[in-house]
């Protein structure tokens, strides 16, 4: 079967992309090691010390089985408890990177490349399962599928796909299509599969209400979405100071102008704002810990 390679999709020369990957790798290698360690602590299941039944031999007697053991004339002899090793939890983690033009306007490109490198390196070291990378803007495209192993060369190949020139930022489409991708990928994993998406973007997007509905749908399908907002580094403006203009109907149905803080209606439940790559490992582990503790309490 011939492999189909879409060469039109490569917008950056491979040599340049390799150089960029090496550079990002150098800038983030210590951070990747520490992020990997933090993720290991959060994502790996705590070693189960629970004793489970019912076995013919084991560590301790299961007292609940004793009566039926005697009553059955010692035939029902699965009366022992054993310490069982937990099965390794599996993950599918997708990194979705904003390829729209506002990323270059807000000088977030370097930070985006470093984030891709940091997160993918940490996850490969974790050996946790599948890693996929998608890019989005006007549309959403998989640039590295779950099935494929990740290497330095795949890193360079991924960097080739980004030029941050897309003239729209369609997050609705991203979330909708990501749900489909995750649902298709579910067949690759075992029953105890965790699906997580990390979105890396400047966070500027329209129609928060519709996105929020889709985010809820993802959550119902047990897909966790974490939004990493890369905040303009060199500029004097921050998304945290940004306001949004809305027109809402008053009691008489007249549209009235309202100005609110942009982040007040931000549709993602779990988001962090980072200004510097060194902040990312801490922020990411913080938000994941919050998510998993919330899961545990429900």
């Amino acid at each position, binding site marked *: 079967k011939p492999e189909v390679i879409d060469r039109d999709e490569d917008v950056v020369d491979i040599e340049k992309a390799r150089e960029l990957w090496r550079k990002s790798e150098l800038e983030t290698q210590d951070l990747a090691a520490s992020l990997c360690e933090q993720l290991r602590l959060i994502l790996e299941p705590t070693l189960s010390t629970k004793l489970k039944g019912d076995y013919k031999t084991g560590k301790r007697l299961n007292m609940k089985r004793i009566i039926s053991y005697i009553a059955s004339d010692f035939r029902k002899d699965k009366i022992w408890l054993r310490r069982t090793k937990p099965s390794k939890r599996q993950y599918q983690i997708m990194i979705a990177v904003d390829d*729209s*033009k*506002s990323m270059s*306007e*807000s000088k977030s490109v370097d930070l985006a490349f470093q984030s891709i490198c940091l997160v993918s390196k940490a996850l490969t070291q974790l050996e946790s399962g599948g890693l996929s990378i998608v890019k989005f803007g006007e549309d959403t495209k998989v640039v590295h599928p779950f099935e494929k192993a990740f290497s330095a060369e795949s890193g360079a190949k991924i960097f080739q796909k980004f030029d941050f020139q*897309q*003239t*729209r*930022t369609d997050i609705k489409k991203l979330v909708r299509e990501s749900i489909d991708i995750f649902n298709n990928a579910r067949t690759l994993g075992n029953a105890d599969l965790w699906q997580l998406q990390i979105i890396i973007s400047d966070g*500027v997007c*329209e*129609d928060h209400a519709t996105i929020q509905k889709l985010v809820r749908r993802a959550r119902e399908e047990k897909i966790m979405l974490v939004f990493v907002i890369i905040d303009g580094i060199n500029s004097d*403006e921050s*998304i945290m*100071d*940004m*306001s*949004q*203009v809305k*027109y809402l109907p008053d009691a008489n149905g007249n549209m009235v*102008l309202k*100005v609110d803080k*942009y982040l007040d209606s931000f549709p993602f439940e779990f988001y962090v704002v980072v200004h510097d790559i060194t902040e990312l490992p801490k922020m990411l582990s913080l938000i994941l810990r919050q998510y998993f503790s919330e899961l545990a309490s429900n």
Partner: protein
Amino acid sequence: MEDKSQIKIKFITREDNQDLHVDDKPLYVPISLKRYGLSEIVNHLLETEVPVPFDFLINGTLLTTSIEEYLKEQALSSEAFLTLEYTRSVLPPSYLASF
């Protein structure tokens, strides 16, 4: 379907009167806005009791259309970050109404 496209902008002004200055923090606004709607926003931010009509300039050129049309003319997208300069309108009110 209504186009909900929005764009990031900031307002600046060279007016001497400090009372007419808004802070230059970014704002996310619909691209369908024209002079009138933008003027309404500036007045809202200034909390003026009597609305002051404003004109808007982008890169020194008076905005006479919607932002959307401006973007089209300039071959820009809503991914741009626009700086809008506002000045007290010098046009007579009857003429303003036609914008």
